[in-house]
C-alpha cells in the first residue's frame, strides 16, 4: 500500500477498502473462519453452524427518508446474517455518542431500533454506550454484532458460484445512496425518494424454503452491485455476464444519476439482495422473489460463466459490452 494516510476511499467498499483488508488486516488475523470474507463468519461445531457478523454505522444524516441510523443498524446486521443463511437471533448494540446529542433524538432512534428488531424477531441482548467530547464524533455512531444459527442443509458462500448459474437481483438499485445524498444536498422531488432500508430475512427464508441449494446470496451495500459481483467472481474464480437492460432502476434515481454523472451499478443499497442459483432453479426463485413485497421488481440479470474468470462483463443496452470493475475511489462518504 503506497498511501500513508487513510483516505475516505478506504471506507467506500471499493478497491482501497479491499486493499486495506488484504494488506493490513488479513495478514494479522488470518484464520480459516475469516478468510472467505463472506458477509458473516460461519462457525461450525458438532451442533451445527453459527453465523457471526459485525458492522458499524456512521451514516450522515442520521435521519433520512425511509429510515434512520437505528433502523439501518438492525437491518444491516440482520441482512448480513441472512445472506449466509442464518436465522437472525441476537444482536449486540454499541453506541458512541457525541456530548450534546439530544436525548429526545436518542429516544427516537432507540425506538426505531426496537420497532425494527421486533418486526424481525431479533433480541438486543447486550450493549454498551460511550460518550465522547463535542467534536470527537459526529452526533452518533453505532456498532453492532449479530449471531444466529445457520439453517441446516444450506451452504451459502461467495466461494460457491459455478459456470452456468443464474444471477437474480431483488429490485431497484441505488435508492438508499440517492436518498441519503438527496437529504444531504437538499434535493427536492416531485414524488417520493426513500431509502430501501429493510430486513431481508423473510424474503431469504422464503427463497431457501423453495431451494435450499442456492449457491450464494449477498446484499450489495457500499460499492454497489458491481463491487459485490466482482467480489463473488474473484472468490469463486468465475466470470459473470450481466444484461444492462434487465437491471431495474427507479426513474428518480436515474434522473439524479444522469444529472450528477453517477452510475447506479455502484450505488449502495440497504434492502436488496442478489442470489446465485443453479440454472433450473432460477425461474421459480424469481417467482418467489416477485411474490414478496421486497422483491416485486426482481429480475434475472445475468449468468455465471467459465470464460473471463474473475471479470464481470456488462452487455450494454445497445448490444455492446464493457467490463464492470470494482468501485475505485470513493463516490460519497458516510452513506451507511
Amino acid at each position, binding site marked *: 500500500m503506497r498511501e500513508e494516510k487513510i483516505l475516505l476511499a478506504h471506507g467506500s467498499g471499493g478497491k482501497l477498502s479491499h486493499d486495506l483488508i488484504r494488506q493490513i488486516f488479513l495478514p494479522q488475523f488470518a484464520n480459516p473462519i475469516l478468510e472467505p470474507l463472506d458477509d458473516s463468519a460461519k462457525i461450525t461445531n458438532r451442533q451445527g453452524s453459527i453465523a457471526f457478523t459485525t458492522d458499524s454505522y456512521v451514516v450522515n444524516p442520521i435521519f433520512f427518508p425511509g429510515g434512520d441510523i437505528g433502523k439501518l443498524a438492525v437491518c444491516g446486521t440482520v441482512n448480513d446474517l441472512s445472506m449466509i443463511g442464518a436465522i437472525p437471533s441476537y444482536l449486540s448494540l454499541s453506541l458512541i455518542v457525541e456530548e450534546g446529542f439530544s436525548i429526545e433524538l436518542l429516544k427516537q432512534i432507540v425506538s426505531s431500533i426496537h420497532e425494527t428488531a421486533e418486526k424481525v424477531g431479533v433480541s438486543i441482548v447486550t450493549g454498551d454506550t460511550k460518550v465522547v467530547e463535542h467534536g470527537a464524533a459526529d452526533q452518533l455512531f453505532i456498532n453492532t454484532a449479530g449471531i444466529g444459527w445457520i439453517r441446516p442443509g444450506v451452504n451459502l458462500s461467495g466461494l460457491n458460484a459455478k459456470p452456468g448459474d443464474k444471477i437474480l437481483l431483488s429490485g431497484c438499485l441505488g435508492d438508499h445512496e440517492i436518498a441519503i445524498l438527496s437529504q444531504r444536498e437538499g434535493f427536492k422531488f416531485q414524488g417520493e425518494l426513500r431509502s430501501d432500508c429493510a430486513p431481508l430475512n423473510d424474503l431469504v427464508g422464503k427463497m431457501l424454503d423453495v431451494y435450499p441449494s442456492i449457491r450464494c446470496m449477498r446484499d450489495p451495500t457500499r460499492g454497489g452491485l458491481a463491487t459485490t459481483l466482482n467480489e463473488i467472481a474473484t472468490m469463486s474464480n468465475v466470470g459473470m455476464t450481466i444484461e444492462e437492460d434487465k437491471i431495474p432502476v427507479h426513474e428518480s434515481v436515474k*434522473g439524479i444519476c444522469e444529472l450528477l454523472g453517477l452510475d447506479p451499478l455502484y450505488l449502495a443499497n440497504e434492502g436488496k439482495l442478489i442470489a446465485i442459483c443453479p440454472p433450473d432453479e432460477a425461474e421459480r426463485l424469481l417467482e418467489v422473489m416477485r411474490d414478496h413485497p421486497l422483491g416485486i421488481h426482481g429480475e434475472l440479470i445475468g449468468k455465471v460463466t467459465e470464460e473471463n474468470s474473475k471479470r464481470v462483463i456488462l452487455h450494454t*443496452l445497445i448490444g455492446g459490452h*464493457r467490463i464492470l470493475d470494482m468501485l475505485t475511489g470513493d463516490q460519497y462518504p458516510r452513506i451507511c
Partner: protein
Amino acid sequence: MKFIDEFRDKEIAKGLIRRIQKTSTRPVQLMEVCGTHTVSIFRYGIRDILPNHIKLISGPGCPVCVTPNVDIDLAIALSRQKDVIIVTFGDMMKVPGSTSSLQKEKAEGRDIRIIYSSLEALKIAKEYPGKRVVFLAIGFETTSPTIAVAILRAREEKLHNLFFLNSQKRVPPALYALLHSQQVKVDGFILPGHVSTIIGTDPYQFIAKEFGKPAVITGFEPLDILQGIWMLVQQIEENQASIEIQYRRVVHENGNPIAINKIYEVFEKGESDWRGLGGIPDSGYRFKESYKEMDVRNFEVEVEPSKEHPECLCGEVLQGIKIPLECHLFKKVCHPENPIGPCMVSIEGTCHTYYKYQ
C-alpha cells in the same frame, strides 16, 4: 426519461449499425473530441458493435485533462492561504499537481469546497465576506457562459471577495492546432454536442474549408453517436467535407447568441496553455480590463516550480497520438487511486475511461 431513453433504443441501434456497415467501404479514423463522448462510447460499448475498419480515437476534449500543472499548483498555493476558500467543480479535486492535489490539501484542512454551479460561488462569497473566495473556472464553451453570468452578477451585487482562476479553453483553436500539426491522421470529427449548443457551426468551418475534413456535431446518447458516425462515413464515402448537425434538437447553426454575448461582456479571446498541446493562440480567454480585478492571477502568491512526471503520456494521449495502453505507467503505477496525470483522474479522461471499461 424523455429525450434520453428513446435515444437508447436497441433495435434502432442495430439498424444503424447495419446502415454503417453497408455504407462504409474504406478504413477510417474518426476523432471524438469531447470527453463526454469518450465516456458514452465506452459506456455503451460502441467500439464493439462498429465494423472493425472504423476506428475511433479520443481527442483533447476533457477540460480537466488539458489543465496544465501550473494552474493546479496555483490553486493549491491559494488554498494554503488562511483567508481563502477554494470552490471548484468536483472533477478537479483529485487531479495531481506537481506535488499535491486539492483533495490532499483538503485532507490537510484547507477550505476547499465542491460546487455544482457557478452561482453557488456567489452564495459562498456572500456568506463569508471576510474571506476571499476563489472559483476554479475550468471548462469549455459550454461552461464559460455560466461563469460569465456569475461574474456579471458579482459585479451587479458589488461582491468584492469573489475571484476566478481562469483556465477556460475554447475547442476550435485546439482542433486547428491538431490538424495543423498533422501528427495524427483523422478522417473526420465527431464534434462536441453541448459546446456547439453555445457556439453553433461557424467556428468549425475551417475543418472542412481549410483541411477538407468532414465534421458532425453529435449528441451523447448511443443513437446520436451512431447517427453521427453514419453521417461522417457517408460524407467520407462521397468525398464530401462539410460541417453537419446531428444533434438538431439542441444545436442550431447560430448557437446560443445570448450565451455568446455574455462571454464577451466579460472576456476577450486570449492565448491559453494546453497540457500536451502547449500554448495555442485564442484558445482561451482573458479578463476584459473592466473585470480584471476579479482575476486571481493578480494575487501575490508563491507557487512552487511546476513539474510533470517525465513518463506521463497524457500529452500524447490527449492528441490521439498514443492510446493509454502504450503508456508504461498505465495500470502499473497510474490508476484512479493513484493518478499520475489528469487523464486518469477525470471520469472523462481517456486513461480513466480505458481503465474502467476495458
